[in-house]
């Protein structure tokens, strides 16, 4: 009986191991965790948070028409390999609003297996920039950009096959209206400066009144 059980386990255990390995391999993707940065939602002057998943990309592609304009054709070309775009940008009113640990939290994920640094800039004046790609063979599986500027922290995570040159060329060619963007589901553009302005404006008249006296 014991030998039968052993033989049974000999078949089952390797199978389970294979399944577990396959699941682990599929789970290893280019998505990076940015949840720790959410604490800046209230601290930052301006917060931009965008989560775009694959279904949303497909929905957007259904609206785009390559015959309508060359830009749309370019965008469709870029979107064809994408599975997700996740952006977080925090703008602060003064320097040193975020800690080095926050940057390191993202950077540590980008030093994991599969990631390959293509640009690594450290500038005292401009800040530090990391551009990291995840490859699957020769195909780019994901992109991560970490821009830690003195007064801003930006993390961009693109999942899927992407052409960097085409993506860079797109800047300024969108013509995206800013109206209504803040109310769009999934996009958070919160400007804390607006909340502060009324208080400042209240102070200004008081100062002006004092000056003539």
């Amino acid at each position: 009986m014991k030998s039968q059980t052993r033989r049974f386990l000999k078949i089952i255990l390797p199978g389970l191991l294979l399944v577990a390995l396959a699941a682990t391999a599929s789970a290893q993707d280019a998505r990076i965790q940015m949840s720790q940065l959410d604490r800046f939602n209230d601290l930052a002057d301006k917060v931009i948070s965008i989560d775009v998943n694959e279904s949303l990309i497909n929905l957007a592609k259904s609206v785009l028409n390559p015959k309508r304009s060359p830009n749309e054709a370019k965008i469709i070309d870029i979107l064809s390999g994408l599975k997700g775009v996740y952006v977080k940008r925090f703008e602060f009113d003064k320097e040193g609003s975020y800690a080095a640990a926050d940057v390191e939290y993202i950077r540590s994920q980008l030093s994991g297996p599969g990631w390959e640094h293509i640009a690594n800039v450290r500038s005292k004046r401009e800040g530090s920039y990391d551009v990291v790609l995840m490859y699957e063979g020769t195909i780019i599986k994901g992109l991560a950009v970490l821009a830690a500027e003195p007064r801003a922290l930006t993390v961009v995570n693109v999942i899927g096959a992407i052409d960097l040159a085409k993506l860079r060329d797109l800047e300024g060619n969108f013509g995206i209206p800013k109206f209504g963007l803040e109310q769009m589901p999934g996009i958070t553009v919160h400007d804390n400066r607006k909340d502060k302005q009324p208080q400042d404006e209240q102070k200004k008249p008081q100062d002006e009144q004092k000056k003539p006296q």
Partner: protein
Amino acid sequence: MSRLDDELKIAFQRQEPPADFAAHVLARLNEASVPQARPTVWQRLASVFAMPRLGYAAVGAMALLLIIIGIALLRSPRPAGVENNAPQVAISPGNPASEKPAAGNATPEQNASDKLKSGQPEDGTNASLSSTTAGHHAEPSSRPGGSHRLISHRAPVVAQQSQPQPSAEALAAKEKVLFALQITSETLNDVQRVISDDRPQDEKPEPVQKR
């Protein structure tokens, strides 16, 4: 004595073994002491399947497990809204997500259908959309202005049927995706700009994207 004694005597009567008995026993012992050849990997693998009940039970369990995983993967959320499968959302003026992005971003077809829905008169170019030629949608007419007089009250319906309007959700998704791409593009160009700025002056930096 008695019959019992006789039977016992017969039963316990000494019998001499055959002459080659010892030789047979020794031969069998020699056979048993010969080490059996170690089974190969294939023999061991075959021996696993030689046991029908447990072997087949294990294979069945694995197959069931794989089927369950396959079904779970198939039932996982799939990309929705491709082409005409996009969910249609009612356009309401109060809903910012359902509003049109901007006139500059909207296509001529969208502008035309919007104007037709609102009942605004327009020039001949867009009016041709609402004409009864449903099969020739989105083709500008060379007819001079005033052709809108021919528009019947059923024309907008015809135009809508011939040109499926993208849903507000799809437009919102498009803007969101473009916004995400724009920030990505800007950030990448910022990196390139910083790299170009940090270069020595005598080196010619690569042309930065127009800004």
